């Protein structure tokens, strides 16, 4: 199985530690550039919306945060499944490292959504399907992190939390399709939509920059956090001692 050698090589902690360290600036720098350009474009260059006026600009934080909260959960669940099936500790490390990032973005999404809902809809919070399922996502992240910290033994923490992550992934399509399946206060998707994005390029381009920038930001943060996880897990390994000595 020659095709799998890169996979096994990547899953070896020393190798990954080195690669991830090298990758950080390659993710972080474009992320910073894209986020600055995207936010600037969204807040200053893009025209105001015909019905929401200036208030719609919160979309440049809200929608990328929502996307990241879903992408992080999916990443976490896939990594947890890989960790369980192939017994790869690095995959569990990735899942564990992703959870707080995803939780932060889920919280950011809920907070900005609430700030947006008050002036536009007339309410901070409503129990509609989209809002409720997103809140459940946030609680799944918290539950995942709490479950991990409840075990002293890392292997058991990895396995128990992986099952929770995998079971919770059913919520991801529910969040995405909630606005189509049920009547809801929240509107449908603007970008991923039949008939193309419902936005002119002057609004859409900064938004896409924010999506890309936030995604790269996740990649950079994940590299930093997985390296920290690896250090903690491999603290007694000889390769680390050699790295420290050399």
């Amino acid at each position, binding site marked *: 199985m020659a095709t799998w050698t890169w996979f096994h090589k990547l899953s070896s902690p020393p190798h990954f530690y080195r690669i991830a360290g090298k990758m950080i600036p390659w993710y972080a720098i474009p992320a910073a550039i894209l986020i600055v350009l995207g936010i600037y474009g969204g807040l200053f260059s893009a025209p105001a*919306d*015909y019905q929401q006026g200036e208030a719609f600009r919160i979309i440049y934080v809200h929608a990328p945060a929502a996307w990241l909260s879903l992408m992080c959960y999916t990443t976490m669940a896939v990594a947890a499944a890989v960790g369980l099936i192939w017994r790869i500790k690095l995959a569990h490390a990735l899942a564990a490292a992703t959870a707080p990032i995803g939780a932060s973005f889920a919280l950011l999404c809920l907070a900005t959504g609430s700030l947006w809902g008050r002036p536009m*809809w007339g309410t901070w919070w409503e129990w509609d399907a989209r809002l409720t399922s997103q809140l459940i996502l946030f609680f799944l992240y918290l539950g995942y992190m709490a479950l991990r910290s409840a075990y002293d033994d890392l292997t058991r923490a990895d396995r128990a939390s992986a099952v929770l992550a995998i079971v919770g992934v059913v919520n991801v399509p529910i969040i995405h399709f909630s606005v189509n399946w049920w009547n809801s206060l929240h*509107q449908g998707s603007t970008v991923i939509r039949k008939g193309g994005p419902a936005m002119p390029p002057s*609004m859409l381009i900064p938004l896409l920059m924010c999506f890309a920038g936030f995604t790269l930001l996740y990649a950079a943060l994940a590299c930093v956090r997985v390296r920290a996880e690896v250090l903690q897990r491999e603290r007694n390994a000889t390769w680390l001692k050699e790295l420290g000595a050399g």
Partner: protein
Amino acid sequence: MTPRRKRLFAIAGILAGVGLATAVALKAFDNNLQYFYDPSEVVAGKAPLDKSIRVGGMVTKGSVERKPGSLEVQFLITDFAQSVKISYTGVLPDLFREGQGIIAHGRLHDGVFVADEVLAKHDEKYMPPEVAKSLKKPVPPAPEGRT
């Protein structure tokens, strides 16, 4: 079967089971998950009377009547098939206007929906005001809600 394959099937099985259970549960609770009833459902008698519910639809053009000297307002909402009359006393959200999608919370009483809260709903379309003006739609916008 290798242990690895066994774990793969176990996880696939768990996921399929949980997914199926969730789908069945959501299907069973479908009506409770609907955030609001649309006017057709109200007219067809599917919405309960004198119970706290929500209705949603577009504010019919030219139907908004304000009572002078009070905050009381009456208007029709429509899903372009049926309409429901709404009566509300209070401050309306900024986005409230004729032709806008709204959601009202309240009770159905004697054929009138007495609202205690009115929320504005907006669609997923964004555009600059100039474009919106030049579009000045000859066709009515698609009904809100299920798309």
